[in-house]
C-alpha cells in the first residue's frame, strides 16, 4: 500500500450547526480571527469590489440601452465602440460579464423575494402592456411575435428588470467593499469582527434604498419597476440575491449530472446547495465551473499585497485562482455573517427572554443551512 504523505492531503475541521448558532448568538464572527484572514478577506473583497463595479455598470447599461434588443452584439462594451476596445474585447482581454449574467439568471430563476412577487402583479402586467405597445410600434418583429407568443416579451422585461436591480445592488456592494479596503488601509478596520461590523453597517445604511427601473422608448419614459412598487434594497434584492447565489446556486455542469434518471438534482429548488457558501473551490478553472469566470476577473484585479501572499503559498502563481476562490468563500461567509447580524430580530444583548428566543430561532434557522456549508474554510 502506498504511503501518502500527510501534508499532501488534508481536510480542515469544519464547524457544526450548534457551533454556527453559538457564534451567531454570542456575537462572534463565523470566520476565525487572524491576521491572515484579515488580509485575505479585505483584499479579495477589494478586487471583488472593482469587478462588481464593472459588472454593475454593465448590467445597468444592458438593462437601459439594450432593452429588448434581439441582437445585442456589443452589449458588453457599454456603448463605447472604439476599435481598441473592440479589439481587446475580441482578444478576451476583458472582464467576464457573462458571470454577472449568470448571477442574474440564478436570481431570476430561483424566483424568490418581493421583486419576484411584483413580477406577477397586475400592475407589472400593465407596465408590460404599455412598453410592448410602444416597442411594437417601432419593431415589426416584436409586433408579430407578441400575439403568437404572449409570454415572450413580459418574460424578457422581467429578466431585464432583474438585471437592472442586480446592477443597483452591486453598485452599493462595490462601493461598500472598496470603502472597506480604504478603511483597512488607514487603520480603521483591524479585525475580522470589524470587517463584519463594517459590512453590516453598510447594509443597514442601504437597506431602505429604493429599487427603481425605467426605460426610454422613442424618447418616452416607461416605468418597469416604478417607485410606487415600493421595492427596497435589502428585502427585495439583497435577500433574494443571497438566497439565489450564496445559498442555492445552480448545479454546475462540470460536477453534477443533469441526467434525469440519475436523479442527482433535487426537484425542489429550495433544497439546492450549489451556492457560493457550499461550492468546492478545488475544481475552480476546470470545465463546467461558471465561477471560474469570477475568479479570473478577481485575479486580474488582485491587490499586490494579497497576490504576494498567494505567491508565498502552495503552488504560488500556479494555483492562485483556487486560492482566490478559497479566500472569496471566507469573505462571503463574512458578508453573510454581516447580513445575519443586520437582520437579527432583536439586539443580541437583549435580556428579554422572548427576544432571546426569537434571536435563537433566527440564528438556528441560519445555522441549519450553514451547518452543511463549507465551514471548513472558517478556521484554517
Amino acid at each position, binding site marked *: 500500500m502506498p504511503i501518502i504523505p500527510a501534508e*499532501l492531503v488534508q481536510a480542515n475541521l469544519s464547524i457544526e450547526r450548534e457551533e454556527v448558532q453559538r457564534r451567531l448568538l454570542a456575537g462572534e464572527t463565523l470566520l476565525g480571527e487572524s491576521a491572515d484572514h484579515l488580509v485575505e478577506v479585505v483584499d479579495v473583497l477589494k478586487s471583488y469590489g472593482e469587478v462588481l463595479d464593472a459588472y454593475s455598470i454593465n448590467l445597468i447599461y444592458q438593462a437601459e440601452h439594450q432593452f429588448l434588443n434581439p441582437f445585442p452584439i456589443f452589449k458588453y462594451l457599454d456603448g463605447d465602440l472604439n476599435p481598441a476596445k473592440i479589439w481587446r474585447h475580441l482578444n478576451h482581454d476583458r472582464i467576464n460579464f457573462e458571470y454577472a449574467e449568470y448571477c442574474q439568471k440564478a436570481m431570476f430563476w430561483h424566483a424568490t423575494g418581493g421583486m419576484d412577487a411584483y413580477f406577477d402583479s397586475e400592475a407589472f402586467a400593465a407596465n408590460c402592456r404599455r412598453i410592448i405597445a410602444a416597442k411594437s410600434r417601432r419593431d415589426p418583429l416584436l409586433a408579430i411575435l407578441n400575439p403568437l407568443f404572449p409570454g415572450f416579451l413580459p418574460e424578457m422585461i422581467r429578466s431585464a428588470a432583474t438585471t437592472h436591480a442586480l446592477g443597483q445592488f452591486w453598485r452599493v456592494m462595490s462601493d461598500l467593499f472598496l470603502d472597506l479596503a480604504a478603511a483597512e488601509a488607514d487603520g480603521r478596520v483591524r479585525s475580522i469582527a470589524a470587517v463584519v461590523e463594517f459590512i453590516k453597517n453598510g447594509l443597514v445604511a442601504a437597506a431602505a434604498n429604493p429599487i427603481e427601473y425605467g426605460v426610454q422608448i422613442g424618447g418616452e419614459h416607461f416605468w418597469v419597476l416604478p417607485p410606487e412598487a415600493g421595492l427596497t434594497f435589502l428585502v427585495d434584492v439583497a435577500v433574494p440575491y443571497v438566497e439565489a447565489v450564496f445559498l442555492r446556486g445552480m448545479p454546475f455542469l462540470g460536477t453534477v449530472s443533469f441526467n434525469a434518471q440519475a436523479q442527482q438534482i433535487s426537484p425542489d429548488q429550495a433544497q439546492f446547495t450549489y451556492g457560493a457558501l457550499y461550492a468546492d473551490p478545488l475544481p475552480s478553472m476546470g470545465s463546467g465551473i461558471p465561477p471560474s469566470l469570477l475568479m479570473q476577473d478577481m485575479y486580474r484585479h488582485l491587490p499586490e499585497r494579497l497576490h504576494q501572499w498567494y505567491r508565498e503559498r502552495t503552488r504560488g502563481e500556479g494555483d492562485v485562482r483556487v486560492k482566490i476562490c478559497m479566500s472569496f468563500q471566507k469573505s462571503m461567509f463574512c458578508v453573510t455573517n454581516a447580513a445575519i447580524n443586520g437582520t437579527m430580530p432583536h439586539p443580541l444583548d437583549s435580556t428579554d427572554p422572548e427576544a432571546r428566543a426569537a434571536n435563537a430561532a433566527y440564528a438556528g434557522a441560519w445555522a441549519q443551512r450553514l451547518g*452543511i456549508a463549507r465551514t471548513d474554510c472558517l478556521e484554517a
Partner: protein
Amino acid sequence: MLLTCLLLIPFAGSLALLLWPGGPRPSRLRLITIAILVLQLGVSVAVALAFDTTQAGMQLQVRHAWVPGIGLDYALGVDGLSLPLVLINGALTLVSAVITRDIDKRPRIYFAMLLLISGAVNGAFLSENLLLFFLFYELELIPLWLLVSVWGGVNRAYAATKFLIFTAVSGMLILGAFLGLALLTGSVDFSLTPVLSDRLAMGGQLWLLGALLIGFGIKIPLVPLHNWLPDTHTQASTPVSVLLAGVLLKLGTYGMLRFGLQLFPEAWAKLAPVLAIWAAISVLYGSLAAIAQTDMKRMVAYSSVGHMGYVLLAAAAHTPVSMLGAVFQMVSHGLISALLFLLVGIVYRKTGTRDLEVLRGLLNPEKGLPFTGSLMIVAVMASAGLPGMAGFISEFLVFRGSIGVFPVATLLSMVGSGLTAVYFLLLVNRAFFGRLAITPPSADPVADGRLDVQLAPVAPRETIPAVALAAAVVVLGLVPSSLGRLSEVATTALAGITAIPGGLG
C-alpha cells in the same frame, strides 16, 4: 569508423566519468553525460544519413580479427533492422539522462552505468559476430542490475535478484546455443551466415533455435517467461524503466529476428505456427493481466508484455509487410512505453503513489497535473493503436502482414489490441478524471469533497522529454514513410530469407 564511434563515445565517456578528478556535483555529472549522449545521438543520426536505404545487406562495416582462435571478430555493421534501434537507443538514453534529477546516491557510478548500457546496447545491435553480440548482451546486464539494485525502490533487492537470475539464464541459453552451433557444425564461424540443412540437420537446428527462443523470450519477455519484468519495473527508477522498456526489451526481439529467423531460417519456418500461437497467448495474457493491475507502472509493464507479442507474431509470419511491421512495432513501442513510464514517473514523483485506487482527478487545471494528464491521454491512445500515432501504423502493418499466414493468431492479437484500450482507459479515467484526490474514495462523499490536495507543480522543463517523445509518436504516426524508407529493403530481404534456394526444401 562511424560505428566504432558509437561504441567509443559512451564507453570512453563512462570511463571518463569514473575517473573524473575531484568530486564533481551531480548536476555537473548529469550535464557531462547529456553532452556525451547528445554527441552519441548525433553520430547515430550521421550513421542514418550515411546509410544507403536501397541496400539490403550490412553497411558501414568494420571488421578486425580479435581472437581468431575462437572465432571472435570485432565485426560491426548496420542494416535497416538495426539502424532504427540504434537511433532509438541514442534518443532514449538521452531522455533517461535528462529525466534523472535529484540523484544523491553515487551519481558518478549512476551516470557511468547509464553510458555503459548505451554503449553495450549499441554494440549488441551492431555486432556481426555471434560472440561479440553475446559479450555486449552480457555487458549491458551488469550496469542495469546495478541501476535497479542501488537506485531502486523498497523491494529492489528482490527485484534485482530476480532480474539477475532470469537474465543470467537467458544469457546462458544464448551462449549455449552459440556454442552448440560451433560444436554441431564443427566450425567456429560465428558470422551471420544462415545455418541451413546442408550444414546442420533439422533436429539440431530446432534444438539450437529453441534455446535461442527461450533465451530471447526471457528478454522480450514472452509469457510465461515474463515474471521478472513487472517486478523490475516497479522497483526501478523512472529513467531506468524508460531505458528498460524502450531499449533493452528490444534486444530480445532484435536477437530473435537476427539470430533466430536470420540464422535458422528453415527451423524458423517449421516453428512459425507455434510461435504465432505463442505470440497470441502473450498478447492476450499481457493485456488481461494489465486489466487487473492497480499499480500504474505494473499496468504499463504488462502492456509491454502484450505489445512485444506483436513483434513475435510478425516475425512468425515473416512476410515483407509483417517484418516491416515488426521494426515499426519495436520503434513505436520504444517511444510509447518510454513516454508512458516517463509520465507515470511524473505522477509518482508528485503524488507519492501510483495506485489507481487512490489517484483521482489529476486533470484538475490549477492543483492537479493537467499537462501531464493531457500527454498521458496522447500516450495511452497511441498505445491503444489510435490512428495518427505510431502505434496504429505499426499494428496495422503487423496485422496486415500476418493475417494471410496466421489468421487466427492475428485476429486474437487484434482482440488484445482492443483490450489495450480497456486497461488504459481505466487508468486515465480513474487517475485523471473526477475530483482531485489522492486518497481512497471514502464512504462519505461530503468529507471527500472537502479534501484539500497539495501537489508540487510540474515544471515545464520536466515535461520537455515527454513532449519530445509525444511529438515523435505523432510524427511517426502521420509520416510513417520516414521510418519505412529506412527499413523496408532490409525487412523485405529478411522476410524472403526462408525462400532462398534450398531453403524450405
